[in-house]
């Protein structure tokens, strides 16, 4: 079964995680996506994700208030993304 689950993961897919109000607006905590080759950085990925649902569109409409991480490191809009990456979108952090 594990092998079966794994076989369904496309080699060009990336894991996208959402937190806080980004998660609430998107309506998902995470999803596996396979953006087209034209999507090469965080900014491009945000634009592409916006088209996936009304929830995505609403979340990413607040683009300036959204922060991103690639493979668990904070990054800027021009950071490259590629298959196999773990990408996360969330509001500015408010811990402490």
């Amino acid at each position, binding site marked *: 079964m594990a092998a079966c689950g794994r076989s369904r993961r496309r080699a060009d897919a990336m894991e996208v*995680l959402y*937190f*806080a*109000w980004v998660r609430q607006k998107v309506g998902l905590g995470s999803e596996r996506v396979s953006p087209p080759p034209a999507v090469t950085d965080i900014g491009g990925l945000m634009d592409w994700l916006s088209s996936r649902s009304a929830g995505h569109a609403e979340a990413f409409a607040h683009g300036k208030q959204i922060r991103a*991480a690639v493979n*668990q*490191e*904070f990054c800027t809009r021009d950071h490259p993304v590629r298959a196999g990456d773990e990408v*996360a979108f*969330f*509001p*500015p*952090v*408010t*811990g*402490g």
Partner: protein
Amino acid sequence: MATIRVQEAPFDVAAETAALSAGRVDVGGIASFLGLCRADDGLAALVLEHYPGMTERALAGIVAEAEGRWPLTGCTVIHRVGRILPGEPIVLVLAASRHRTAALEACAFLIDWLKTGAPFWKREEFADGQSRWVEARASDDAAAAKWG
């Protein structure tokens, strides 16, 4: 050397403080900051969400940065997640060193950086059933930025 924990359970300030000097006689000072949940504007609870995996990584990075800047004998960061009631503790930062200035500065650095550099998000729940995400404050960015 450093203790880093993200947990739902409350923590024991006395035990964590004692652990930094237990069995050793080279610690001159332990500075600490305990963050508590205030009940502003009818707040009923804070709900803290985080990014498992990245949180621990980010905290380890912040602690390593502090250890690089100051000669610490030990360091502890414990951050709670989940539902926290007014008056309850949220976060504990401890920095121990031979000298007080290193301990005090490292403690202030750790809490300032933690506020802006670790993936935690607070949602406020009010007595009237309303709920809202806490917005990041420019003053927190400024506090973290002052460390350069």
